[in-house]
């Protein structure tokens, strides 16, 4: 049978596995899991951080005094966000394929929370735009609502995944939102681009630095 030669070879190897090789295999198991079986927060943060940074700065540079956005700029902003969302979905799909259990359940629910929340944001912002309310009211609300949802979901997600870095990022984004609302409306976009998008990119950098310093987790 075709299996026999492989198991015979393996049996012969079994007797001569050195401790150093064993520990190397153990470390490799840990790094395989980290690099291939878990989502990479650094990549996701870079995708969203750069979308926010570029997108919000573009809105800041092209909106009027009320914060009303030019249609083309809004389209570019949405394209950036949709790209980040697609990247996140594909990345998560690849990394978590074939894994089932409590983590998969939590992950699905958390992902569902993002989708449902942003459908709601989209509908609410559309209703605001279609209303008779003045742009001086609708612009800050339309701006603040999605950012607040992001901040809340980051903090809630941090509780699920017990990630201090994610909690700090969520709280920081909420603080930046409040700070930006004290600014004149167009400036609020700039504050969010740098403070929000920038914070995501910095968090990615911090996570990268911490990863380099942690030895792979062997049981």
């Amino acid at each position, binding site marked *: 049978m075709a299996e026999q030669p492989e198991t015979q070879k393996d049996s012969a190897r079994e007797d001569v596995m050195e401790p150093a090789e064993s520990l190397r295999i153990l470390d490799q*198991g840990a790094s*395989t899991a980290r690099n291939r079986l878990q989502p990479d927060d650094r990549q996701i943060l870079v995708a969203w951080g750069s979308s926010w940074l570029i997108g919000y700065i573009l809105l800041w540079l092209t909106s009027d005094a009320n914060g009303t956005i030019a249609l083309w700029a809004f389209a570019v902003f949405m394209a950036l966000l949709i790209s980040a969302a697609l990247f996140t979905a594909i990345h998560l799909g690849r990394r978590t394929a074939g894994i089932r259990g409590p*983590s998969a359940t939590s992950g699905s629910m958390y992902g569902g929370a993002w989708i449902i929340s942003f459908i709601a944001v989209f509908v609410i912002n559309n209703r605001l735009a279609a209303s008779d309310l003045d742009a001086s009211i609708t612009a800050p609300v339309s701006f603040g609502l999605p950012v607040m949802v992001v901040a809340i979901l980051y903090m809630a997600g941090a509780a699920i995944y017990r990630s201090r870095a994610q909690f700090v990022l969520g709280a920081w984004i909420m603080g930046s939102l409040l700070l930006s609302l004290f600014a004149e409306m167009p400036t609020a976009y700039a504050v969010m681009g740098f403070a929000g998008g920038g914070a995501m990119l910095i968090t990615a950098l911090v996570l990268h630095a911490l990863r380099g310093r942690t030895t792979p987790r062997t049981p």
Partner: protein
Amino acid sequence: MSTLDPVIHAPARLQIAATLAQLPVGDSLAFTRLQKELSMTAGNLSTHVQKLENAGYVEVTKTYEGRSPVTYLALSTSGRGALETYTRQMREILTKGTPD
């Protein structure tokens, strides 16, 4: 002096156990996914998984997703314990020369 667990002390089975050990407790990994990550043939992986299962170290769950049969693997509690013991022994050998 205790001897090394012969079930774990084999490159392929150690790889399997070490990878499954990284999953959170309660999670399991599809056979095909593990096969892909470890670059083993299905037959080879199956042989080693069976040895680990016979020792009680790996839990094998066969189920269906739609109409396709899928096999999920998870390291059992005794499997995690055996791997921890083995790791400790390896570290002791490297530092002291003999496992306690």
